[in-house]
């Protein structure tokens, strides 16, 4: 009903901000091999969810978690059965300072650090994962006073990168770029320490372009791009 | 008598309660001490303040009363405020044009250029109000009021900030307002001289009440009113131009009691003019004296005396059928035995020509 502003063959894709760079790469690859055009609409997953509820003119929703797509599907706001996991995020403990974080994560915090950045555990899957790791190590209560929370993983990363927090739990995709060396020091947190960060996509409006794009996201070419950004795929 | 006003206004402790009428031609002076309610009354008449207890009828038209209240901009009056109150964002010309533009062309009596010329504003037209001197500002305010070609002019001490020379220049035009245009003026002032010169009718206000009202000549010579006891007290005479003294450039003015000789020859034969004679300029003698520089000497009958203070008396005399005031010392009054009914001579040192 609200699609008049968009040219045929284009689709609007809502994407969580922290996945935007990766998805932009995916789109370039997709558009190179198909007649369709993809318009990215960035935002937080919570905001997108609220907007979809209120009639936002979107075709596909790349969420930062699995919960919101599931909810939308259940509420009948998404195409039933279209939901799948497009990427699995990896959590790292990162600092832009060389040698600040030990590569094996032991001891977890080598030096007294004033601030340790994480994403908000209530809102962001990476935040929840970081919380699980700290809980598992029995450090959650100890470190409470040092934790600074970003509203999303992007902010947690900025806290660390600007040097205001010495280190932080961020997404691997934020420090890893295809064919580039990694800055600073990091500990790639073993995946058994936190429940998997599944990022799901769901179809909101059926169209040939949308289906073609979702098919592409599942393709091997797409997976290669995802791996280049530090995601794993199911 | 066709302007009727009736107001009852309360402002803090101050109560203005008036009910008076005035002629719809000529200049009516509103005279009273500071704080007597002159400005308050003028504002009510202009329609600037709404007072439910009010009634105003001008020339048959009701502006307030019978459930009607015409707002200020619908009343064909102009108002000159006590402070100049020019529009700070407009230059002098635009200030003048403001009202002019808002009057339908067929109702215009006076052009902006004429107002500029009348009030000597030629060099000021491009200036902003803040660069004007106090007197210049007030002149612009008067010109601005004239530019709306009002049918009724309300002036709140418009000349207070002006020097004598400027006053002398402006007064004749204010006079001509009612003479040539027939615009009635309600003029607030506390200078008797101005009033004597300008006004035909006088409303005397004191502490919010109208103490007396009437034609100026009568009012000025009523010994029961304070007007006849101020230092500027004097009488006004209606006269007619009877001839000229070409040699000495004098004009002869006839009235019922005789003939005045006044300096100058600007008037026309037969013209009606008013003159003012200050009480302090009138001396009394028992005989008609010669070899004096005083030109104007008239037989007069003493009518009434009133004590001014311990040392002076005010004498009202009848000269022809007009009253004349003379302020003399008690000593003179005793020496000359001045009493009601006595025949004397009034020596008039100085006669002031009014309009």
């Amino acid at each position, binding site marked *: 009903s609200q699609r008049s502003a968009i040219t045929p063959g284009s689709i609007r894709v809502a994407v969580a901000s922290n996945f935007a760079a990766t998805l932009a790469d995916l789109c370039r690859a997709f558009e190179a091999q198909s007649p369709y055009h993809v318009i990215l609409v*960035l935002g937080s997953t919570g905001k997108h969810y609220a907007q979809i509820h*209120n*009639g*936002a003119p979107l075709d596909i929703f790349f969420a930062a978690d699995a919960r919101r797509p599931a909810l939308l599907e259940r509420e009948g706001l998404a195409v039933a059965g279209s939901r799948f996991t497009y990427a699995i995020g990896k959590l790292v403990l990162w600092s832009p300072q060389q040698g600040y974080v030990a590569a094996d994560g032991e001891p977890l915090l080598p030096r007294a650090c004033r601030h340790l950045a994480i994403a908000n555990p209530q809102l962001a899957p990476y935040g929840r994962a970081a919380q699980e790791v700290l809980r598992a190590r029995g450090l959650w209560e100890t470190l409470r006073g040092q934790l600074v929370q970003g509203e999303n993983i992007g902010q947690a990363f900025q806290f660390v990168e600007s040097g205001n927090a010495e280190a932080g739990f961020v997404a691997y995709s934020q420090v890893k770029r295809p064919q580039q060396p990694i800055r600073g020091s990091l500990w790639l947190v073993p995946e058994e320490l936190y429940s998997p960060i599944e990022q799901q996509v769901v179809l909101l409006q059926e169209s040939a372009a949308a289906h073609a794009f979702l098919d592409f996201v599942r393709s091997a070419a797409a997976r290669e791009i995802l791996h280049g950004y530090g995601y794993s795929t199911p | 008598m066709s302007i009727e006003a009736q107001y009852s206004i309360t402002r803090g402790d101050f109560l203005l309660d008036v009910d008076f009428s005035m002629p719809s031609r000529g200049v009516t002076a509103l005279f009273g001490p500071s704080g007597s309610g002159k400005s308050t009354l003028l504002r009510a008449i202009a*329609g600037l303040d709404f007072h439910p207890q009010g009634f105003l009828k001008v020339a048959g038209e009701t502006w307030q009363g019978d459930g009607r209240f015409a707002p200020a*901009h619908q009343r064909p009056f*102009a108002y000159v405020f006590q402070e100049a109150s020019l529009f700070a*964002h407009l230059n002098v010309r635009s200030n003048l044009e403001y009202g002019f533009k808002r009057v339908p062309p067929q109702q215009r009596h006076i052009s902006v250029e004429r107002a500029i010329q009348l009030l000597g504003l030629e060099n000021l037209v491009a200036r902003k109000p803040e660069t004007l001197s106090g007197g210049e500002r007030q002149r612009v305010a008067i010109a601005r009021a004239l530019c709306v070609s009002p049918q009724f002019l309300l002036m709140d001490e418009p000349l207070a900030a002006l020097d004598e020379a400027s006053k002398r220049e402006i007064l004749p035009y204010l006079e001509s307002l009612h003479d040539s245009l027939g615009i009635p003026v309600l003029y607030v002032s506390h200078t008797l001289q101005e009033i004597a010169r300008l006004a035909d009718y006088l409303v005397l206000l004191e502490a919010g009440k109208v103490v007396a009202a009437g034609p100026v000549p009568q009012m000025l010579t009523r010994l029961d009113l304070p007007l006849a006891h101020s230092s500027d007290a004097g009488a006004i005479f209606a006269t007619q131009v009877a001839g000229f003294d070409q040699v000495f450039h004098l004009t002869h003015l006839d009235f019922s009691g005789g003939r005045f000789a006044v300096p100058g020859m600007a008037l026309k034969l037969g013209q009606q003019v008013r003159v003012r004679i200050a009480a302090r300029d009138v001396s009394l003698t028992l005989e008609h004296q010669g070899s004096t520089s005083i030109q104007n000497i008239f037989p007069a009958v003493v009518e009434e005396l009133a004590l001014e203070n311990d040392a002076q008396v005010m004498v009202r005399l009848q000269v022809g059928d007009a009253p004349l005031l003379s302020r003399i010392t008690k000593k003179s009054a005793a020496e000359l035995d001045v009493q009601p009914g006595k025949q004397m001579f009034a020596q008039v040192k100085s006669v002031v020509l009014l309009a």
Partner: protein
Amino acid sequence: MMFHSADLIALALTFKLASITTFILLLIGTPLAWWLANTPWRFKFLIEAVVAMPLMLPPTVLGFYLLIALGNHGPIGQLVEWLGGQPPAFTFTGLVIGSVIYSMPFVVQPLQSAFRTVGRRPLEVAATLRASPWDRFFTVAVPLAGPGFLTAAVLGFAHTIGEFGVVLMIGGNIPGETKVVSIAIYDHVEGMDYHHAHVLSAALMLLSFVLLAGVYFLNRRLRMVQL
């Protein structure tokens, strides 16, 4: 290239939004401010408080409630749909509505205090010079309240440019339609594309600075010419 073409579109869209919003704000705000400055009504303080309210709400929250109201289930959205129109959420119109509500206090407050300082006298003078209430409002009150209008326009315009939370919520970040420059910069930052974030911020600041400096400069010149 220094700019994404998308960034240029966002920049243009932003200035369009700010201009339209400022225009509407002055249109609505002026009579409101006038009324507030002059009414003797005893309960006007309640209205004054309501006008200032949008200031106190976090913009995202305001945006959230606006989204609900303007969306296809909300009262306004449904009303518009019933009238045959599109619900204003996720459209440029929606942004304008949101911006107007959000920036209203920045326009009303300076205007109100400007009108109050103009005072009654100049208006009384104008009344005696035959100016009707509307006339004297436009020819006397408005020009005399000049500095207040400048402040109001600058605050309203600038605040709309810098606006973010409301726009993000009810606009939906749609390029060319509702993606304004504040959101574009934010996206760059979030997407860790700091280079483009810096470039776009610098461009915005430069433009803003030139615009503001121009306005203030002209304002000064104008007042000097009048003197």
